């Protein structure tokens, strides 16, 4: 390890890093703008100037840009030297000549890197009195606000947006004094990671527009560590909440990234960042609702829709208690339906209440089997689930049947970095340090091999070396042949099409020849054979290489992998429940269905679901948003969302992560398990299962109970910290030390100050009293350090720049027993049939905005969701005589759907692509992949008035 001297102090440092990064790791304050820990150095801003001395005799030294300076063993440097300080001050002064004096009205103010650097450089007086150059701003869509006058031309935005995230519609325009960062014309920034510009921009050029409508300063936000609920990657987030202006109830105001070394690093996707608005949407359930018995004139309501009224929660809880008591006496069937989008704790509570025999997963048989398959595959010791940094280091990637940009967005960003590994290898051989960003990017050379086979590939097309657009059946057969080719290339059937054969041999060669191959797949194509064949490729590759194969399997929802740990072998799915209820018809015992945070219309086809619901005498729903299922419910309890509750999610990698409540839900909103507990507390007689429920006090009591009952989930009892955790006798403060208005915020109602809300359930307080140091626990989500008000301060809390967080890792992998996966028979090759409009296969297509249930209700996101469409192959379209944008009808086993035609050259012939979960198409999702017939929509009859 090289030893260097900085301002007279000797340090042993990592010689791989540049001087700036090294200084920051050492905790020294060196100002910078254009350098970013994840994006390296370009030396554009000149802000990180330091002095370097030839030897100890050198009295003058020379100015160097520390971000562009490699570490020299024995090097002598200075941050504090007067010349360097003056230089840095003058750089700031130059930048400031054009920067507006608008900090008080700028939304970056208080967490602005430019403010921090200005203070740090000591430039506190502005001597320039002239006019400033001004720009006109652009409309960049519903997520990002643009204020170009604040720009200091550090180029970070385009480096992130173009170089790192692969965006194509943001550029540096103009030159000299007039450089402008914008689009070629006004319009939404199309890349799905555009939200990171808000954090990447060191000042207020790009700000969060959704936050803007309920803006408060960073120091006025109450935060806690949370986990994003909009996909199963498990990115860590720092939601921020504060009381709204005209009531005492806190509202969620924004989501920012919370650094997690192994998952999201510094970046989030736009669904995760802007999807939070569903929480404050009009569809949010805030009160206890019960069905209205009287007839209502309801012209727009569909048959079976119920109308609801608000009732006193006690009434509903008492009713629930009665039903539970009845069930205990055997006079009522109490059936629970769980959900993959809520915590393990909520699911466990319902399971405990109704008993394991009456607890169903809330998934269709198909979906549950797929998830079991994922879990089974991951249990094999020849498989390794890679973390994000491991994905970024892969030297060859095979993606099968998963459009990851739309189903696991953060992972596609990691894949994009992996594509540059060849370039990085070349840089290493030329002895160019990897942090020399522009030098490395200028190296010639192809991308690392990325091979895709599946229905649709978004965002990554330009960096994939080979693509095969086929139906899931053919993808599975491709994977099967690939497995053969890896183990024994001579065993391939000679009947294969030559081009396919070539692709298989090519892919096999690449996988065999690479040192860190990675395979990515998942459940989204809803095809078991694909998963089985993928597993086979992975195991064959592992046998060949004598090392576990990295296999990333994406699941559909945030807790999919957690939920199925409660079930054995795919038992307990909705199809099974339907069978059971159908058989039960003779039985005179009435049935109550308790549905936990689940819209069943997205799970089961409409016909079966109507049957299922009609078998129940009563439907009790605990949920966060009004949805089609809630229209059928007799009782509705308002449940808290992720940011309002504590619990555990298990992500795609089997990592159990705990999230904490950021604020307490409005009014009667509470965690689903608390509603159940409340009802149980009203029961006079309590058999063993009920008395266990009655004893629960905190979410951690449930976590511990889960850990005891399910050996697989044993990790839950070491997740933490629990509510009794203290640092120096104190809890961690959710509010910053500067949280303002505490004595005045409720003054219009009462002038005396209320005591802060107590939180017995978490090791955190709803106030500013407590520990504020992110170094001492993973609980701190407000990342702040003296002099570093912006999110750049995260480096103060990392082992090294870009390393693990010092407060301890959040999340523990669940320990599933190691088991060799069974040998599955090879899937039969589908016969070739001519495309026939009366029998087309519908394949699910996923959308970053539109496919996920909750984020669809967010205001900003709902603005950009596409209208439903049916994607048809271009050759088929000719044969069927249908045209782009024409209206078409899709006749399925559960009704007819109407949408515009979209013609595509890549969608496989004989299939049509159906957007999964898009508004108006939600009920079509359970039918995917299935068959339907296509016919031109009949023009609506024109009536003359």
């Amino acid at each position, binding site marked *: 390890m090289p030893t260097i001297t900085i301002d007279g102090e000797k340090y042993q440092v990592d010689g791989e890093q540049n001087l700036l990064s090294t200084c920051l790791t050492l905790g020294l304050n060196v100002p910078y703008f254009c350098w970013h820990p994840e994006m390296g150095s370009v030396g554009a801003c000149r802000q990180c100037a330091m002095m370097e001395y030839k030897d100890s005799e050198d009295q003058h030294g020379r100015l160097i840009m520390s971000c562009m300076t490699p570490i020299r063993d024995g090097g002598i440097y200075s941050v504090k030297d007067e010349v360097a300080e003056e230089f840095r001050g003058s750089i700031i002064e130059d930048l400031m000549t054009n920067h507006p004096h608008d900090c008080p009205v700028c939304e970056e103010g208080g967490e602005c890197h430019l403010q921090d650097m200005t203070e740090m450089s000591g430039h506190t007086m502005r001597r320039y009195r002239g*006019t400033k150059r001004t720009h006109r701003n652009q409309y960049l869509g519903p997520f990002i606000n643009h204020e170009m006058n604040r720009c200091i031309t550090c180029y970070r935005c385009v480096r992130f947006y173009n170089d790192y995230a692969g965006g194509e519609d943001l550029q540096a325009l103009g*030159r000299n004094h007039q450089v402008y960062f914008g689009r070629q014309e006004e319009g939404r920034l199309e890349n799905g990671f555009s939200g990171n510009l808000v954090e990447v921009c060191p000042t207020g050029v790009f700000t969060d527009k959704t936050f803007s409508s309920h803006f408060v300063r960073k120091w006025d936000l109450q935060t806690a560590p949370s986990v994003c609920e909009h996909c199963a990657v498990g990115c860590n987030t720092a939601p921020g909440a504060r009381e709204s202006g005209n009531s005492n109830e806190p509202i969620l105001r924004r989501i920012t990234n919370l650094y997690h070394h192994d998952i999201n690093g510094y970046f989030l996707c736009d669904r995760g960042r802007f999807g939070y608005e569903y929480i404050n949407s009009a569809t949010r359930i805030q009160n206890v609702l019960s069905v209205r018995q009287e007839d209502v004139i309801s012209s727009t309501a569909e048959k079976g829709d119920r109308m609801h009224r608000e009732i006193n929660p006690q009434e509903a809880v008492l009713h629930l208690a009665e039903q539970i008591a009845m069930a205990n006496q055997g006079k009522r069937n109490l059936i629970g339906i769980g959900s993959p989008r809520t915590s393990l704790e909520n699911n466990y509570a319902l399971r405990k209440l109704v008993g394991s025999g009456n607890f169903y997963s809330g998934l269709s048989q198909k979906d549950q089997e797929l998830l079991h398959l994922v879990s089974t595959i991951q249990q094999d010791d020849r498989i390794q689930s890679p973390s994000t940094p491991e994905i970024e280091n892969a030297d060859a990637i095979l993606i099968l049947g998963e459009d990851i940009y739309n189903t696991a967005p953060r992972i596609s960003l990691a894949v994009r970095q992996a594509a540059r590994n060849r370039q990085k290898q070349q840089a290493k051989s030329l002895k160019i340090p990897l942090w020399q960003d522009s030098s490395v990017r200028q190296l010639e050379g192809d991308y690392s091999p990325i091979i895709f086979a599946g229905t649709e590939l978004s965002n990554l097309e330009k960096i994939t070396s080979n693509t095969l657009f086929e139906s899931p059946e053919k993808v599975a057969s491709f994977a099967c042949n690939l497995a053969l080719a890896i183990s024994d290339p001579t065993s391939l059937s000679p009947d294969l099409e030559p081009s396919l054969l070539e692709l298989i041999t090519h892919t096999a060669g690449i996988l065999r020849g690479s040192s860190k191959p990675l395979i990515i797949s998942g459940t989204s194509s809803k095809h078991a054979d694909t998963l089985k064949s993928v597993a086979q490729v992975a195991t064959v590759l592992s046998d060949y290489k004598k090392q576990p194969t990295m296999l990333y399997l994406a699941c559909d929802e945030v807790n999919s992998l957690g939920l199925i740990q409660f079930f054995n072998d795919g038992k307990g799915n909705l199809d099974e429940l339907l069978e059971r209820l159908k058989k039960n018809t003779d039985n005179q015992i009435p049935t109550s269905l308790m549905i936990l945070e689940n819209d069943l219309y997205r799970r089961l086809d409409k016909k079966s679901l109507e049957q299922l619901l009609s078998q129940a005498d009563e439907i009790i729903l605990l949920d966060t948003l009004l949805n089609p299922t809630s229209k059928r419910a007799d009782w509705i309890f308002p449940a808290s969302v992720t940011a309002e509750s504590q619990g555990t999610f298990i992500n795609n990698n089997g990592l159990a992560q705990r999230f904490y409540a950021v604020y307490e839900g409005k009014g009667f909103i509470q965690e689903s398990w608390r509603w159940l507990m409340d009802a149980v507390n009203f029961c006079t007689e309590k058999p063993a299962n009920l008395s266990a429920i009655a004893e629960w006090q905190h979410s951690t009591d449930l976590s511990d109970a889960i850990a005891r009952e399910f050996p697989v989930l044993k990790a839950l009892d070491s997740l933490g910290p629990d509510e009794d955790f203290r640092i120096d006798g104190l809890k961690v403060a959710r509010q910053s030390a500067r949280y303002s208005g505490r004595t005045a915020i409720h003054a219009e109602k009462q002038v005396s100050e209320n005591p802060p809300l107590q939180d017995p359930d978490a090791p955190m307080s709803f106030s500013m009293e407590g520990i504020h140091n992110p170094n001492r626990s993973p609980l701190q989500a407000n990342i702040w350090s003296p002099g570093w008000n912006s999110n750049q301060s995260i480096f103060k809390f990392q082992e090294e720049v870009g390393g693990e967080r010092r407060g301890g890792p959040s999340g523990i992998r669940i320990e599933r027993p190691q088991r060799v996966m069974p040998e599955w028979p090879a899937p039969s090759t589908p016969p070739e049939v001519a495309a026939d409009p009366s029998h087309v296969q519908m394949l699910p297509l996923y959308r970053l905005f539109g496919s996920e249930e909750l984020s669809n209700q967010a205001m900003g996101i709902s603005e950009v969701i596409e209208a439903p469409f049916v994607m048809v192959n271009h050759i088929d379209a000719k044969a069927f005589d249908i045209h782009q944008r024409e209206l078409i009808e899709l006749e399925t086993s559960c009704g007819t759907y109407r949408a515009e035609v979209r013609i595509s050259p890549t969608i496989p012939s004989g299939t049509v692509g159906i957007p999964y979960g898009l508004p108006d198409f939600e009920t079509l999702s359970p039918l995917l992949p299935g068959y339907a017939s296509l016919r031109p929509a009949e023009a609506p009859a024109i009536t003359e008035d």
Partner: protein
Amino acid sequence: MSSLLEPELIEVMEHSNRDSDKFSGPLTAEEKEEIDREASHYENKSSVGLEALRIVQKHRRWISDDTIQAISNYLDIPVAELESVATYFQLIFRQPVGKEVIYLCKSASCWVMGCDRLQKHITETLAIEPGQTSADGIFTLLETPCLGDCDKAPVLMLGEEMHRNLDESAIDDLIDKKKKYHADKSPD
């Protein structure tokens, strides 16, 4: 030149440069051929963006929004990237210019030798400020940094020809000559 205390209006990216005249529309066969010829010198088509802009500008005099879109479609380069190149280079015009572009050198030697006086003269003669085009559509006046002929200052460049050791009468001659040339060329 505006004073420090008077707002200087700098317009960047403010015009929608759509133009439906003959200078727009899809690339002609001739333009495509020239671009292809140039592209053969590069490893891939996407590197030829700047040359393509120059080639098309040669034919169309300036680059309209439609033109930039046409080049983008032809070369499969994102519009924003072409825009970035086009707005970086001073000699790519994103707004209509006259048939003759006057680049008047404003660097130190020319300044010492009286380029401001010449600029005033041009402005009065043609009734155009820098950045504007004369009413007859022939002349556009632009300021430029050093043209590298300091020993013969003041200088200007007209199209691709240099004119050195200038004074008012030399400029008058030049303007008359060009006016006459264009009058003969297009008798309308």
